[in-house]
Each structure stands twice: as C-alpha cells, then as structure tokens.
C-alpha cells in the first residue's frame, strides 16, 4: 500500500480527524529514546519502517504490539490527550481522565498500526532540528516514497522528566493537536463524555480495517 499517497489524500481532507503514528519495537530505538530530540524521532521512524516491512507477517495486532512501547517511549501521550481537551480536561473526574487517556493512547498507537502496514521502499529523511520558544524543539523530516512523492513530518518535542518526548506532529504543516482538539471538544461540549468515548472506540476499530 502506498503510505505517502494515503497520507496525502488524508491530509488533503484537511478536516478529517485524527492522524497517524505507529511504532515498531527496536532495541536500538529503546536505547536511543532517552537521547536528544533527533534520536527520539529517529527511533520512531525506525519502528515505523520496521512495522511496514514486517506488516503483512505481524498483522494489525502484531504491529500494534510492536509499536506500543515505542510510541509510549517517544510520545508524551498523557500530555497530548490532556491538551486536545483544553479546559474541558479539568472538568473531567479522575475516572473519566483515565478512561480518556487510555482510549486516546490506544487510538494513537492503533492509527500508526493501521497506516504503516506494508512496505514498498519508503524512507524517512531528517531535514533539520530547530529550537522553539519555551524550550521546545522542532525536528523536521520527510517521508519519501519510492516514486519520489513526499510528506513532510515536523515533530514538536519537549523535555520531560523521562527525557525528550513528542508532543505534537505536523503533517505537511497540519497540526495533529488542532485537528483533534476541534473534533473532540465539539463532541464533548455538544454530546458529552460518553459519546466522545464511543466515537473514539469506533475510530479505534476503524484503524484495524486500515
């Protein structure tokens, strides 16, 4: 499957909901993930390439299991989950917060596992890394298809107590946080928390179908 084209058409549907991201287990990645921001991104990319290469063999669940620890290590998923809900986060009770964070995590990993499932010569290329305000760093990279088509991936990272972690991803400039925030908050404010969770569960199920 042509990942680039899929992602491109997806991004072109700019307002379609949540984004990609998927992981592959890699001992190299694990050892490097605590390093500098570029290493973190590299780890993720390695895992994604691996998930693609072994995609057919592993199946969805296999890819999911492969990517889960890498995503956990490279992303600050709790922070991303919290940020997508904005001020609504503080209005949730502890149980709701846990429920949301959990499904959010699964969806994030599931999206990667759904997207990056087969390999046809794709490669990631590092462009540059640049400092951002508030001690954040942006690592810019691109995913190149064998036929030369390109998707830009820019990662925003910040340093937490466990080292550098991805907190937002811009695919061709489109902010993952922005997309999710608009969608989630609209549902949450209009239909309430349980509808939001139901919707996320449906989305998760869809990632399996790719």
């Amino acid at each position, binding site marked *: 499957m042509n990942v680039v084209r899929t992602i491109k058409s997806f991004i072109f549907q700019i307002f379609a909901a949540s984004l990609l991201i998927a992981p592959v287990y890699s001992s190299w990645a694990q050892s490097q993930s605590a390093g500098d921001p570029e290493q973190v991104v590299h780890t993720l990319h390695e895992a994604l390439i691996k998930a693609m290469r072994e995609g057919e063999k592993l199946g969805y669940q296999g890819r999911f299991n492969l990517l889960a620890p890498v995503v956990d290590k490279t992303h600050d998923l709790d922070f991303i989950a919290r940020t997508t809900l*904005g001020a609504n986060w503080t209005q949730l009770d502890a149980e709701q917060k846990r429920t949301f964070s959990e499904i959010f995590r699964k969806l994030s990993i599931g999206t990667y596992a759904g997207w990056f499932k087969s390999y046809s010569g794709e490669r990631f290329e590092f462009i540059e890394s640049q400092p951002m305000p508030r001690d954040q760093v*942006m690592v810019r990279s691109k995913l190149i298809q064998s036929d030369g088509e390109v998707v830009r991936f820019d990662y925003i990272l910040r340093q937490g107590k466990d080292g550098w972690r991805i907190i937002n991803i*811009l695919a061709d400039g489109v902010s993952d946080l922005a997309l999710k925030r608009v969608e989630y908050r609209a549902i949450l404010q209009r239909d309430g928390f349980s509808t939001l969770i139901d919707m996320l569960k449906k989305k998760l199920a869809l990632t399996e179908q790719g």
Partner: protein
Amino acid sequence: MTPSNKASDSRTYYLFARWATGCYSHARWVLILTLMLAAACGIYIWRDLGMNTDTTDMLSKDLPFRVNLKHYNETFPQDMDTMLVVLEAPTPEQAQVSTKRLTALLKRDAFNFFDVYSSDVDDFFSRNALLYESVPELARITDRLAAAQPLIAHIARNPSLRAFADVISGAVNELRTGRDMELRSVLGGVSATLDARLSGSPRELSWQSLFQGEPQKQKYRDFIVVKPRLDYSQMFPAEQSISALRAAAKDIGITENSPVQLRITGEVALADDELNASLRGMEAAGVITFVLVGIVLYFAMRAGGLILNVLVCLTLGLILTAAFATAAVGHLNLISIAFAVLYIGLGADFAIHFLLRYRETLENGAGPQAAVHISGGEAGAALTACTITNAIGFYAFMPTDYRGVAELGIISGTGMIISLLVTLTVGPALLRYLPGRLPAKSAKKKSPIGRVLELSLKWHKATYAVTLAAAVGAVALLPQVRFDYNLLNLQDQKGEAIRTFRELLAETDQSPWHAVALASSRSEADILAQRLAQLPEVSKVVNLTDFVPREQAEKLPLIEEMALTMGPITISSGKRAADDAPADQLKSLEKLASTLDRFIADRPDHPAAQPARRLRSSLDKLLAQLNSSSADEKQNLLSAVEDDLLAALPIALRNLQTATEAAPFNEQTLPESLRQRWRSQAGEYRLAIYPAEDLNDNDALRRYVRAVQGVAPDATGAPMVSLEAGEAVVRAFAQAFMLALAGIVVALMIVLRSIKYTVLVLIPLLLSSLFTAAFTVLLNVPFNFANIIALPLLLGLGIDSSLHMVHRSLNHELVSEVLIHTSTARAIFYSALTALVDFASLMLSSHRGTASMGILLTVGLAFTLICTLVILPVLLNAPTRTPIGVPRTAGRKDAG
C-alpha cells in the same frame, strides 16, 4: 452746564486749537520729524517685536486649573505639545506595518521629533495581546484557531490563488458532507475582497480579522504620538515638523491614493490649523478691508486729500502703537495682534471726526487756518473725552486673569492716546499740503443720512415704544446668552486635524479629550480609579495597573497550549502567482464555483449557505470579467486578486506567532516608554479618565468635568482646561467690564460735569450692548474665546459715538433736529461704517472664531449706530423742552 466745566472744556479747546494751528503752520517740520520717528520706530519693531503664538500662556498662571495642568505637565512632560498621527488602513495588518515603519523613520529624525510613541510600544502589545484577553476568551480563540489551522497550513505552504481556491473547495465539500465547521467568515471575507477589486476600490483581505473571527471592518486605526520640535519664534511653530512628518509618510509610500491614509491631529496640529486659518484668512481680509475702507472714506470725504490724510494718520498711529507694544510688552500674542484691527477701527474714527469737522467749518466759510483752529479745538476736546473713556475701557483688562486680553488692553489703551496725538498733530500738518481744494459742495443741503434720521425724531413716540419693547424683549433673552467653551468650534471645520479629532471624540473610548488625575501611590491610584469608574459620566479609567494583566499564571499555559496546537506555521515564499498559468488558476476558480453550487443545492438552509451564495455571485462576476479580458488583462487581474487575498497572510501569521510567545511580566518589567507614561520619575501615578459622552457638547463637558472634579479635585486635562479657561475668560470680561463701566462713569462725570448727560451717554451704550447680547441668542452665535475680544472695541466705539453726539449737542446747544445734520452725526455714521467694513470681511473667514467675531462686531456696530443716531437724538430732544440755562456761544454757532 457749570462754569468750571466750561472753563476746563475751553482750556482743552484752546490747547488743542493752538496745537493744531501750530502743527499746521510748521507742517514741514512736523512731517519731517514724524517721518523720522516713524522710520526709527519701524526699525525698532522690525528688530525687537516678538511673536508669542503659544496659546496656553494666555491665561494667568495662578489659576487653579493652570496650576494643576502645570504640575501635570511637569510630572508627565511627554504628553505636552504633542501631535497625534492617525494611520488608517483597510486591514489591521497594513495599519500595523505602516505604523511600525513610520515610527522607526520618525525616531531617526531626532531634530524634528523629540519623542515618538506608537500605540504598540515596540511590539509590546502585539507580543502580549493574548494576556490581556480573559481566560474563557483564550479558550475560544484557541478553538477558533485550531479549526482554521489546517486551512492556514495548506495555504501557507503554497500561498497562491490556485491553492487557496482548492482549499476552500475542499472545505466546502467537507461542509456539504456534514462536517461541522465555521466557514462563514472566510467565505464572506473572500467575496468582499473580490467585490472590492471588481468595483474598482480594492482592499486586502485581513487574515487577522479572520483569525479573530470578526468581520473585516471598513478601516483600522493605529496611532503614533509625536512630540515635535516647536519654534515659537516662527509664525507657524509646528510647520517644519509637520512637513517633516508628511515627508516621512511619503517615504514609506503613504500618499493620497495609497490604501493606508495618514492624518495628523492632536494639540499641535489643531493649533497649527487654527493659526493657518486665522492668519491666512487675515491677509485676504486685510486687502478687502483696505479697499472697502477706502470706498467708505470716499463717500464720507469726497476728497482724495482727506482720505489720504486718514490713511497716513492710521499707518503712522499703527507704527507708533506697535513700537509701544514692543517697548511695553515685547511681543504680540494671538489676541493682542488684534490691536491692529482695533486701532484701524478707532483710529479711523478719530481722524474722520477731526477731518469732517474741519471740512464742515470750511464749508461754513472759514479760511483753512481758522478751520484748523476751530476743528482742532473742538475735535480735540471731544476726542480727549473719547480717548480717556476708551483708554479706561481697555486698561480695565490689565488686572484680569486673561493675560492675552490684558496685553491687548495695555497696547490698545495706549494706542488710543497715540491716536489722539497723531490725529491732531499729523492731521493738521497734512492739511497744509493734502486737501488741495475741496469740492465746493453745497453745505446747506441736507445729507440723505440726516433726512432718514429725521424720521425717528418725527415719530419720537413710536421710537420710544419700539425701543422699550425691544429692550424688554432683549432682557427676556438674556438668560439664554451662552459662552461656548469648545475651542474646536472656533476652527475651520473643514481642516484635517479638526475632522479627525472630532471623529476620535465621538468614539468615547479613544477620546483624545479625557481627564487625567494623579495619585501618589499605586494603591491610591487603584482606589481613585475605582471611585471614578463608578461615575455615570465616566466610561472607563485607565492606570498603570490595567497594563499588567491579571491571572497571568492561568493564562500562560493556555497561550502555550495555543502555540503548541497551532504549530509553527511558516509561509513558503517560493511559489507565487507567476508560477501558475492563468488557465490553471481559472480552472481552480471554476471548480470552487461548482463546489459552491453543489453545496448550495444540497444544503440550502445551512448557516453558511448565505455567504456561499454571495461568494458564488462574486465569483460569477470575476469569471465574467476574466472571460471578456485579453490574455494580459486576465493575468493582471488574477495576480491582483491573488495579492488582495494573500498579501496580508504573512503579517497575520507573524503576529500570531509573536502573540503566542507572550511571557509573564509585571509593572517593573513593562517597557520603559510605556511605564513612564503612567508612573512619573517621582513615583506619581497617572489615571486617564475617559468620558461616557461626546464632549463636543458643552453641557456634557460641564457635567463630566464637575463629576470628575467631585472625586478628584486636582484632575486636569483638555476638558478641565477648556471649561475652566472659558469660565476664567468670562470672569475676566465681567470683571473688566465692571471696572471699565465704573471708570467710564467717573471719567464722564468729570468731563461732562453732569449726571444727566453721563446717563445720556451711557444709555445708548447699554442699549446696544443689550441688543447685541440678545442677538447672539437669535443668531445662535454664542460668545466664545475669539469673538469676546470684539467686546472692548464695541465698548470703545459705543462710548465714542454717543459721547460725540452728547458733546456736540452740549457745546452748541443744538436741538436734535439740527444735531442729526451736523458733521458729528455724519462722522459717527461713517466711522461706524468704516469699522463695519473693517470687520464685516471677518465674517467670510473660514476660521469660525474669526467669522463669529465678524458677526458680533457687525451686529454690535449696527446697534451702536441705531442707538446713537436714532434713539439718542430722541432722548436728547426731551431735555430741550426744559432748556438748559447756558447761553449759546455766538462765535461757535456753526450748525450744519
């Protein structure tokens, strides 16, 4: 009449008679000497007479409001003598960029501009704008921006018409398939931008407005406060700085036709406009006046020699008075410069009286030397009385708080004495050479003026009745006599500065007319602000505290969240219009059109359907125009549309980026140039108190000032100053008039030695004042800072006229039937007419204050004439029925 009066009168008579005869005999020497004196004075004036065009100095420094203002100006000197530069643009982005560039340019010109302060204070407010929003609003802004983020990201990556059209198409499709999105403002903004281009008045699309979810306004304003160098030795102190400012604006591309427009207002610009209108108006008025005065004099004298005589006396007197002003005051101010006008009015009056009397004596058969003797003596006696009373009238202003008028009083009072001397010295001397031969006109024939005046004597009962009725009516109108405090009403209303200023006044939250109060500590400032804000007359109070946003700790994470959510959107600069073929651009536009059609067809009741229809029709027009254009025109139009839509995007994005970089700050870390506007070096805090009403209205002004003073007695600022200055002026005039009246009564009693005649002199004066005051109500020309200056002149001419009449009647025991045919009546008529044409030209001035002065003077003089020539003879007639026991003096029986 008592013998002593007669004696003193004849002493004056003989003194002047002999003086005039002497001057006549030694004309050559008198003329040579005066010419030399005039030349010396001319040089002295040229070298030493200064001009003080600073209007703030016109009222006494000791007045409480001036003390407050002085303290305030010393505490916050940067607000003093400033210009307000108003930049207006169709988009906030353009306004901001121009303001920034102009500010930078002006800051470089330290010679012309001492201080340049833009409303954004070195980007401080763009950087911290979000901190000034409330917490819930911040969340809403983030939601809105997040919704727009994908769209913006796509356009930023490829800022071209094609990509933009494609992105909107995609978004409209999403909307059609049921996604919940806010596209109304984008669709509306794009169609308005296309329409503007097609209608020939293009304007850019403001992305900042789109980001803020607001409809794009007609125009956006930005301000720069400039403290220019002012050169008070120049007639127009701000002229050079204003030219430099306009040149700088031109350098950054602000012209009459550019989308960004620059207007200059504020204190300094208003003053400059005012000077321009009043002084430039004066030049034209001067020429017209001179011609008209010449014509009137011709009718009065019918002899070129006599006219020339009047003009020479006038010129000479003016030079000598100016020389006196130079020695006594050292400078002229904007009010005392009017001494020239006063002098022409009253000086001409003196010369006319003397020369007409001379002519009358000549016509009665006396030889020239005898005529000089008689007219010199009689005019001298009458004019001395006038000079004394007039000088008292003018000197009465000296002790008042209105320094501008006090100086006018010194100069004009002395000018009267100079005028008397010049008239009776140079006048006779010139008669030796100038009159040549007078036309042998029948002196016995009654003049048309006299014949008209006979009517009132014939119908004296009717005259009494009408006068009484008019007086009662006028008294009834008196309570409505008003003083207009509003200095703006004096100006030429077409001026740029004034129109801009009034616009700003009407928007009360930006009103440049607001009060300021000082507080010695921050807590006092906060308490005072709170109390002031509770007044219904006050819309808002701003102090330093307001510049330090509250809840920064809550807001900063929200801003951080916003920054993270938006991501760093960088605009790609590589690809532009030229890269897209017009055919491709057209295709994208057509695709957008059909997408809109589909959306409208499928979702006719969608909230976005209305703006979609509008955009559809704008596109229709655009496509129609494109299809009927040549290839070149097509390309030009497409690239113009692309520019209109996308030129402002990079600036808006940069601003957004800047705004999300807000960092916490407190009072201490505010920019210095901002902080020092609100807290002085000495630690005093400034409170700006904005009015709830438009202060163009005098009643609103008074309510506002009194309310603010109730809480903060030492508050100052333009509203306080104009109200308090107005009241000081009214007080000064009331005081001066009381003083003048008392002085004049005493002087009249001494000169006339008769209560009855003193009253007879005063009655026409009081009546004409009464009628003039009533007419200010009827004509809706209230008293103001400008036309109130005309009152001393009216007073002077009023006294002159009635005194001349009474004097003539008294000295010659003339019955009114004869009196009205004398040279005195004619002299009064013509000198009033001279003054009338002198001032009527003022009515045409574009400076409304000057024009209102012209109206007041014209009305006042007309009433003076009526009262002295119509009503006074009727009053004087009454006593003739109970004859005065003094025999006529045979030698001076010379009734016309």
